[in-house]
């Protein structure tokens, strides 16, 4: 049974890089056998391939949820209405597009859990805001608990 933890986002865009920072920390932790940690970057549709074939996937991403900066929420795709990126270009597709296509083609793993972190700022800058940096520890522990469950 393969379990994949995939961080997505752009570390050059401030808090958009929280998923990448989180998988960086998770990769340094002891993980159960069969658990893989992947830096998905801004690969868009490539994410579909990174997920394909896994028994379960945890995605970590910056998500605009209207919450306080640094707030962490766990949800599955069916629980939310997604609006992703600019249109349906699928060039550097957003999560919403990836899920739509994956669902239509029957390529999504049976279990995909998303850990969303509310960004404070998404702008051209390397490094996270203090609120989001502080949320990293919580993200890492909650993802580890998810994997262990």
């Amino acid at each position: 049974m393969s379990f994949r933890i995939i961080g997505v986002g752009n570390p050059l865009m401030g808090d958009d890089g929280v998923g990448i920072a989180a998988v960086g920390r998770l990769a340094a932790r002891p993980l159960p056998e069969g658990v893989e940690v992947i830096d998905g970057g801004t690969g868009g549709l490539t994410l579909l391939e990174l997920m394909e074939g896994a028994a379960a996937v945890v995605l970590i991403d910056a998500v605009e949820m209207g919450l306080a900066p640094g707030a962490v929420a766990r949800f599955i795709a069916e629980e939310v209405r997604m609006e992703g990126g600019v249109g349906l270009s699928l060039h550097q597709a957003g999560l919403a597009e990836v899920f739509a296509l994956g669902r239509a083609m029957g390529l999504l793993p049976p279990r995909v859990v998303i850990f969303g972190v509310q960004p404070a700022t998404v702008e051209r800058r390397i490094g996270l805001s203090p609120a989001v940096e502080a949320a990293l520890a919580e993200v890492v522990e909650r993802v580890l608990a998810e994997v262990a469950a």
Partner: protein
Amino acid sequence: MRIEVRHLARIEGHAHLVVDLERSELAGCRLEIVESPRFFEAMLQGRHFSDVAPIVARICGVCSHSHTLASLAATEAALGVTVSKQTRRLRRLLLFGETLQSHLLQLYFMAVPDYLGVGSLFPLAHSRRDLVARALRLKKLGNDLCHVVGGRPVHPVTPCVGGFAALPEAAALQELRRRLVAALPDLEETVDLFSSFPVPDFARGTEYVCLDGDGGYPADGATLCSSDGPRVPVAAYATAIREYLTPHSTAKFARWSRPSYTVGPLARLKNAFAQLSPMARQVAGALGLDAGAVNPYLALMARLVEVVHGVEEAIHLIDAILLAGLRPEPLPEAAGGGAGAAAVEAPRGVLFHAYAYDEEGRLERADCVIPTAQNLGNIEADLRALVPTLLDLPREELTRRLEMLVRAYDPCISCSTHLLKVEFV
């Protein structure tokens, strides 16, 4: 009467088109997609040369390998580092891998909907499942090629200053070779599909610019060449390519011998037609393309020809790499300062990076010129010539033709973030 197309679909970034029908001309064209690299130039200041390529790799999720390889070559030029034949072959293989990834995405996901009369590929996931499955299969091949050589499907981690920090396994390259050969039937079906598409008629020759492939098809190289004749060492690109501003746009335009030029698949194919693989040349014929092509809509078909060439050359490159014996090589010493420039052929055209480092190897100045910025002036010139010829068409069809022309260039924002927005329901 005016036609306004705001937020043109199926391209990256934002493009707005305005056509003034009373005066039968294009009243405005704004592609808000090309200014962002400037911000990254500032982001790189003060960084050690070993940190520059990993940062650059994050600029773009579509062209991360091209940015990485242009960046490494620029740093190597600045520091006087030369790389081995094995490194050059592996990097060239990586460039073809990215061309496959990017071109297949544009061909199937951006262009096919235009010709099959749907708004996006999503409806086809139900009505033409075979087609979407083939698109995903082919794209995966490009991704896996990049993964095996670059260590990741996007944002590569193995290429480094002086060579490669880790080499692919020989067995993984052999498996890739097998899959590249096995992809030929999928490519044949792709060619059949695209050869059935009616490409809009339009002729406007321009200046076509690419790297000189030095006997091979353009991918990497030290000389920039123009179809108008001039040639210039890549190191001196800034003396040839002039960026300039116009009153009607906030973006920078680029010129060489004429007010505008074009880079990308059509420019490469025209300037290096004789260097295409035999199979690619045959496919070019089937798609109505040769070295004399002057219809910018045909850039789409040139992209498919390059996919075929890329698959064939990737097979040969893997053979050459394995035959020579894949072996770990010590990385050359790199230290000190200096200035240098380099270019690679990214999927959309020639991409320049230029750096200056101080004595401690910290970056003082950076310049990055992306293909879409170079194509912008030419896209506008095409639109200005095209609009008056289409005024008899119904408004909807006219709009579609203009959008298709812009999409034929596959313009791409060079940095982007797609922040997911959710509403809990």
